């Protein structure tokens, strides 16, 4: 997993609430057995017509946002299906950070496994950042994970909270399976204990 330290990039505004993972990556693209190559189908049904032509009104099709690395989104982003194809598609497109008032739990977890930083901020902050994102390609936001801040193009700074363990893993690009396997002793002794206490499990 790639490290996430700081990111300065274009932010695309997506004010719609309840953007679900079926919108982020429709089911027909879940038939892959790989993690890569999904970026071209990110937001497929909002982004293309049935013949595969780009819909010019969709934000990521507009010249200013084609290289966006940040999304500023409406409430409850990533709700619905647990498909990790959603963060895989975002990452493959080049999105490394999503900022919203709230995220669905499973999507939120999945982001951290893929080096994507989901940031939760209050409505007033989202309103300000959404306004900033609407300025287009000249307005670059900066996200600083170490200091837990998002700065708008005009220098407004917003502090965000993050779980210290997740921050540590993102900053260092750590694979948490490796970290857990270091605790094999604790897992073994739990299993021994449970074989006594709840043998039917």
């Amino acid at each position, binding site marked *: 997993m790639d490290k996430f330290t700081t990111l300065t990039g274009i932010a695309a505004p997506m*004010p*719609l*609430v*309840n953007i*679900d993972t*079926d*919108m982020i990556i*429709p*089911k*027909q693209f*879940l*038939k*892959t*057995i*790989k*993690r890569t190559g999904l970026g071209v189908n990110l937001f497929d*049904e909002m982004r293309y017509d*049935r013949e595969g032509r780009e819909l010019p009104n969709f934000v990521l099709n507009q010249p200013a946002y084609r290289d966006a690395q940040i999304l500023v989104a*409406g*409430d*409850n982003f990533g*709700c*619905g*299906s*647990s*498909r*990790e194809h959603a*963060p895989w598609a975002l990452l493959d497109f080049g999105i490394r950070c999503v900022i919203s008032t*709230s*995220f*669905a*739990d*499973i999507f939120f*977890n*999945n982001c951290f*496994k*893929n080096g994507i930083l989901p940031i939760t901020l209050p409505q007033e902050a989202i309103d300000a950042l959404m306004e900033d994102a609407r300025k287009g390609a000249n307005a670059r936001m900066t996200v600083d994970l170490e200091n837990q801040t998002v700065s708008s193009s005009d220098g407004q700074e917003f502090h965000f909270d993050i*779980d*210290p*363990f997740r921050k540590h893993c993102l900053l260092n690009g750590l694979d*948490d*399976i490796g*970290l*857990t*396997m270091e*605790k*094999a002793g*604790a*897992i073994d002794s*739990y*299993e021994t204990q*449970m074989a006594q206490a*709840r*043998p*039917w*499990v």
Partner: protein
Amino acid sequence: MTNPEITPRTLYDKIWDAHVVDRSESGTCLLYIDRHLVHEVTSPQAFEGLRMTGRKVHAPERTIAVPDHNVPTTLDRQNGIENEESRIQVDALDRNARDFGVEYYPVNDIRQGIVHIVGPEQGWTLPGMTVVCGDSHTATHGAFGALAHGIGTSEVEHVLATQTLIQSKSKNMKVEITGRLAPGVTAKDVVLAIIAETGTAGGTGHVIEYCGEVIRNLSMEGRMTICNMAIEGGARAGLIAPDETTFEYVRGRPHAPKGAQWEAALAWWKTLHSDEGAHFDKIVTLRGEDIAPTVTWGTSPEDALPITATVPAPEDFQAGKVDAARRSLEYMGLKPGTKLTDIAIDAVFIGSCTNGRIEDLRAAADVLRGRKLAANVRGMVVPGSGLVRAQAEEEGLDQIFIDAGFEWRLAGCSMCLGMNPDQLAPEERCAATSNRNFEGRQGYKGRTHLMSPTMAAAAGVAGHLVDVREFAAENA
């Protein structure tokens, strides 16, 4: 960690505490996973990850695999899966199950079906367990008083490799449904009414315990319907404390404990309830008597209303949701003020992990007995598992569906998500017993109205959405 000797604990607290393997200074825990259910769509990359790192499945005896999302439900599927990508995914699951030694129910096994129907049916799901699956509707298993939730593919790999998950504890939320349900009102109506009340983000960051007289009086099938849609209310998991109804359902299932182990298990299961005075961070109470047969009109499960209502206008919503409501109405092709019962439908889908169990099929068949689908309405009944299908056939339900003009299919996820050939055509409108009415969910530009099996069956006969209570009276 709460001290069980002095602090009253919720059901969630108890199951959590019983599964903590390790606790870090920051409070993050390593949680032991008792059951891991695996299907073909969210697992290939996880098994590939194990191969690339030379890791094994830590506890194959706790892992069950079954293909469900991609599989065709037509009777000719034993000849093989036509769609190449789907076939590759199912073949990959075959190979992975064999190579890593996990219990597997292949496409043509009678035990095959939707993973969340198969787990309980085979007795893999038991009270007090932790259950995960790379699928958000894993919440279903919470009906047994098991802590069950969906995970992503990276976490699937983590569980395969270590039988644990790194977790932060969620908050406790209680949803109590008091009193009794009126005739014609089912578990599906209850859960849609709950989501309409709390919103799709109302449970975010929480584990919901459903309780109250209405929940107590539900069958296991009904309880599974409720917990299945906990995720649609934003909750990580839904829970219902186990009781005699639960124990009766579990007793004698192939993987349920037997003999002395059954007695020991039962003794522990009986302690699995929230203690008097346990703390809940959020409490929602609904009166059973206030719940009507409920349907969705929009493209989010929270867009749910009693069938007696009319389609709302965008201006009826608070500021942040006006645009979403406008978009929903346009997508659904509906005008504000239209009576919900005036909405004509083209298709009926009965099935899914929400409503694909035997009780659901019986309820739909009761409405359909001696009746036919309206002209221009197509219908599909997809049992949740091969065993549900066999049971329904034994009871003659298949003939009722076939006589009514429905297709009687083999088990799978089918049109709930349309990853297989079962899909809606653009602008086709469907009365569906599934769980998500998202844009494109059942097919590109397809229009989904969520409802109970009886409401979907009645809508199919009437040709439009209908109040099943009036339908029953008029058609008596």
